[in-house]
């Protein structure tokens, strides 16, 4: 068995020295023609990965703009590259920045595929008309809740909005309310945290607006702020703060907790809580992908998108990044609550387009300061 790592750092820079180092690495390690890759996934069984994509004579190349982080997705991109023989070049950045880059590049964009962390970024690119329509058979893989209405982007993996709580001070059965509204009670004063600039949080607020209406959402935001909520720049410091006891409760995405536990062990003093009453507080958000219309490598882009929706890739997200697979029949991580057991929430992600309205509301109540 031989593991191939594609350093696309190398292939693109056209620097002689780099290519020397790389060819050295290849010669020293193993022949690049070997395409068998075995991936171990710590779910219940080891999944043997067979060749997913046929290797043709000239596989060509593919340019991916990724708003998802290299640490999360490079391994699965490497698998795709190894299995298909396609030379994959990736540009990493934050989703909003990658979307802005795509919009600036316009028709001259070198990108074939945009893989974004949240629907907001996909929506901005879709609105500029830069995405091609995806074929119906691709879209059919995923619940229509998790794709664009126009069929120009599709969800790849999911994350749930949850409550992260400190295990020393909170007994989830007794102390935690069944829905978000419960946190406006004065007993939560000084004990809450949120990340109002975070994309997933704002999507949740957009969902609140569409289910509760503007007035009740505003009242909720003001109620939380009246409880002296701690403002964090994003999810991870909130999880850390909940474990340290700086806050008792934070509004976050579910998967960061599992990475903290993986790093710090089972003694990590925070856990997730799914609001039993349902509602937008347990919204499932997706990372998704779309094909750039002007991209030069249409076939490879479609191979890549199909690969991301294949059982292999879906299993990777379930096992390695603690996400929810969006394709039927893929086992989730044993620490997660199955998506089917989450409180039902009837919201299409493509309905959550009015981000500006959410930003305006957050600004109005003073949450963005």
């Amino acid at each position, binding site marked *: 068995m031989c593991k191939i*790592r594609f*350093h*696309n*750092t*190398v*292939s*693109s*820079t*056209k*620097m002689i020295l780099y290519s020397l*180092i790389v060819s050295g*690495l290849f010669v020293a390690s193993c022949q690049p023609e070997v395409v068998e890759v075995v991936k171990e996934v710590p779910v219940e069984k080891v999944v043997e990965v067979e060749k997913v994509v046929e290797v043709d004579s000239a596989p060509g190349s593919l*340019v991916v703009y990724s708003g998802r*982080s*290299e*640490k*999360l997705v490079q391994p699965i991109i490497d698998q795709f590259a190894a299995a298909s023989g396609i030379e994959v*070049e*990736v*540009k*990493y*950045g934050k989703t*909003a*920045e990658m979307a*802005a*880059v795509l*919009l*600036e*590049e*316009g028709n*001259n*964009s*070198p990108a074939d595929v945009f893989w974004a962390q949240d629907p*907001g*970024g996909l929506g901005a690119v879709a609105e500029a008309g830069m995405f091609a329509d995806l074929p119906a058979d691709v879209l059919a893989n995923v619940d229509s809740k998790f794709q664009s209405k126009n069929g120009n982007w599709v969800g790849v993996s999911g994350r749930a909005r949850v409550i992260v709580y400190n295990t020393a001070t909170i007994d989830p059965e007794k102390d935690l309310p069944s829905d978000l509204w419960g946190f406006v009670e004065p007993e939560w004063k000084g004990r809450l945290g949120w990340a109002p*600039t975070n*994309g997933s949080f*704002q999507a949740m607020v957009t969902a609140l607006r569409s289910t509760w209406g503007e007035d009740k959402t505003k009242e909720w935001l003001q109620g939380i702020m009246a409880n002296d909520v*701690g*403002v*964090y720049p994003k999810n*991870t*410091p909130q*999880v*850390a*703060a909940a474990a*340290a006891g*700086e806050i008792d409760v934070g509004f976050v995405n579910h998967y*960061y907790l599992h*990475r*903290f536990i993986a*790093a*710090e062990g089972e003694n990590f003093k925070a856990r997730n809580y799914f609001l039993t009453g349902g509602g937008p507080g347990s919204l499932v958000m997706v990372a998704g992908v779309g094909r750039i219309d002007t991209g030069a490598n249409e076939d490879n882009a479609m191979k890549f998108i199909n690969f991301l929706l294949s059982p292999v890739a879906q299993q990777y997200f379930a096992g390695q990044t603690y996400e929810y697979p969006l394709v039927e029949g893929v086992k989730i991580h044993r620490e997660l609550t199955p998506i089917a057991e989450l409180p039902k929430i009837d919201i299409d992600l493509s309905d959550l387009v009015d*981000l*500006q309205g*959410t*930003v305006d509301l957050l*600004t109005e109540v003073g949450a*963005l*300061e």
Partner: protein
Amino acid sequence: MIFFFRNTSPVKVVLWFTGALVASLLLLPIGYLLLRASEAGDSIWSILFSYRTARILLKTVYLAVAVTLGSALVAVPIAWLTVRTDLPMRRLWAILTTLPLVVPSYVGAYLFISVLGPRGILQQWLEPLGVKELPKLYGFPGAFLVLTLLSYPYILTTTRAALMRMNPVLEEASRNLGDGPWGTFWRITLPQLRPGLAAGGLLVALYVLRDFGAVSFMRYSTFTRVLYIQYQSSFDRTGAAVLALVLILLTLLVLFIEIRTRGRANYYGGHVGAVGNPIQIKLGHWRWPSLFFCAGIVVLSLVLPASILAYWLFREINITMSYSSLWMSAWNSLFASGLASGLVLLASIPVAWLSVRKKGRFAILLERISYSAFALPGIVVALALVFFGANYANPIYQTVYLLLFGYLIMFLPQAVGALRTSFLQISPSIEQAARTLGKNPLMVFRTITVPVSWSGIAAGIGLVFLTVMKELPITLILGPLGFSTLATSVWSAVEEAMFGAAAAPALLLILLSSVPMASIILRESLN
């Protein structure tokens, strides 16, 4: 007038030509912002002209002023101690105290919160003593602390360079006339340091204006944070452009203050000879407090962050790490930073030289323009170059060349500031003498200007090197496809709460940065 007294001098032509070229490059971001701002919708104007924005602007200015003063209070004593006194191990302190500049502000802020936060590591140590919670770090205190500790090296570097080149004659005279070391420092040394202090202070103030990482972790709203929210939440590039233009206006205000601080005096000695050896001051019983001060700053700004990183690394020592990609990132970091510091230095020479020796309107304008982009968050400069690169310069788009242009636009002021301070300390009469002895301008520059202003050149190279090492948005956006550096590896890991994976590249970043800094500082002490 001295340097270019012959109208036909090819050197003059080259200088003005490069100067103009650099200036036009630097105008790219402004051109882009004007273009985008002209397309902005109505909503941005209501954001811009609101009570809230005005308050955030005031808070931003307040933080910038406070951090600049705080940095000066940290940096000037260290500069003076490591250049002018018999402080033990002063070269080591000189190296260590410049390194905090390489710590990315979001990493620094995260580390400070995990130690000094209300329920951080320090509180856990103090728990047995009954300390339930530390005073709030969030807000102004945290932002001030982190930004001061990470950006005082700007002032330190420019001030050290100025101290090293300062003509000792005045100080000797002051001592001979009966002033003590303190009197001499206040009455002679400090006023002479004005240009160096002003150059460094300018860099600190502008850095505070554009920082996003520290202020967002510390919950202090600055103008840059509002600008980021436009990109992040609304995907609104046109609104963000309007806000960025406001940042440029703020920059002009800061520049105006800097010109006032800088003064119009001459800073070179009256005589033509080379600078003699300055008096080394014996610290005596001030030795221990001085050592304690330097050590305290190094512990807070460098040892503390580095030990937490080391702790993360050892906690997860068995995590799978790809060493080959770590080395690749390290090589990319060194490669990009090395090339960038060379390029930026070359581009800064005409700008700094013209602004010191030619007092004309264009020379002044040129120097001002060179600072224009420095307060812009990296994302703005990067998007400007994406726009021009993808649409008008496709062959160099997503190549190392465009990446280097990005660094040039961002970091030119650092080199200009350092160089300018040094050039000011060279008496034109030395060069004049060399010219009358028949040397051509280029030889004068090579044999006199460069050696004499070496401390400024070294400071400029050092500053650019360290800041490129940690640079994130430009590297991510303008780098060739798949180009990863140590800074991007750290970011990618921290972003996903994989702290063990972030520790190795972060420590390597600090370690590798210390090598060129050490060689610069050891070399200057040989001179």
